[in-house]
């Protein structure tokens, strides 16, 4: 299946949802800094992979699907939860990519240009995630 860009996705998401993600993201970044300062970088580093916005995202997916069914005069509760489960499966695959991100950053950050390393690590996250998604679809 081809991956496409769908601009209508932006219209479906309300500004309140974006604000909520911004606040959650900001708060967890502040919290990670405080934890690293208090307990050291080894403990603070754990929170770099904290599921900060995942609960909000998965709730939004469920709500969107339910709303779509409601507009079609159908009961959408079960469909909404199935869509949320699918989103969670995607996040599980994405988190394998997150391991790749962390490995690249850990091994290269101290010796090479940090900006280049972090761009490379993000590329690794995307590549592993995409590969995992393709394998899952093939199965």
């Amino acid at each position, binding site marked *: 299946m081809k*991956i*496409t860009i*769908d601009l209508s*996705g932006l219209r*479906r998401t309300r500004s309140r949802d*974006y604000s909520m*993600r911004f*606040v959650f*993201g*900001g*708060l*967890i*970044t*502040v919290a990670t*800094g405080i934890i*690293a300062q208090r307990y050291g*970088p*080894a*403990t603070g*580093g*754990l*929170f*770099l*992979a*904290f*599921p*900060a*916005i*995942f*609960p909000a*995202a*998965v709730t939004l*997916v*469920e709500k969107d699907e339910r709303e779509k069914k409601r507009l079609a005069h159908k009961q959408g509760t079960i469909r909404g*939860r*199935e869509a*949320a*489960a*699918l*989103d*969670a*499966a*995607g*996040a599980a695959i*994405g*988190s*394998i990519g*997150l*391991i790749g*991100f*962390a490995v690249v*950053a*850990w*091994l290269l*950050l*101290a010796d090479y240009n*940090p900006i280049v390393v*972090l761009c490379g690590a*993000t590329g690794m996250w995307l590549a592993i995630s995409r590969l995992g*998604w393709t394998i899952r679809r093939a199965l």
Partner: protein
Amino acid sequence: MGEAIVRFIIGGMFVSVFAILGDLLKPKSFAGLFGAAPSVALATLLLTVHRQGASYAAIEARSMIEGAIAFCAYAYCVCCVLMHYKRPAWIVAGLFISVWLATAIGLRIVWLG
């Protein structure tokens, strides 16, 4: 206080950018990958490199491996429970944060030996 504000803004921006990307992409199953985007990690590591240096950031990145394994366990559990028991997503995703915490801390203890 000033550093906290900078962290808040940069963290919020990175998370928002990845959230927008996730909303733009189709199919939905692919967009789900962005639920585990390295947004907080990018913001934090950039700030850490700037303030404490790259070696300090590398230590954080090493610990992130355990956090990411815990994320995988967490997302898998949420997926299974939603699929089989059809409970509200916000309750399942919220309650199972404890799975992330337990796995991450457990792995940290094992890693430390």
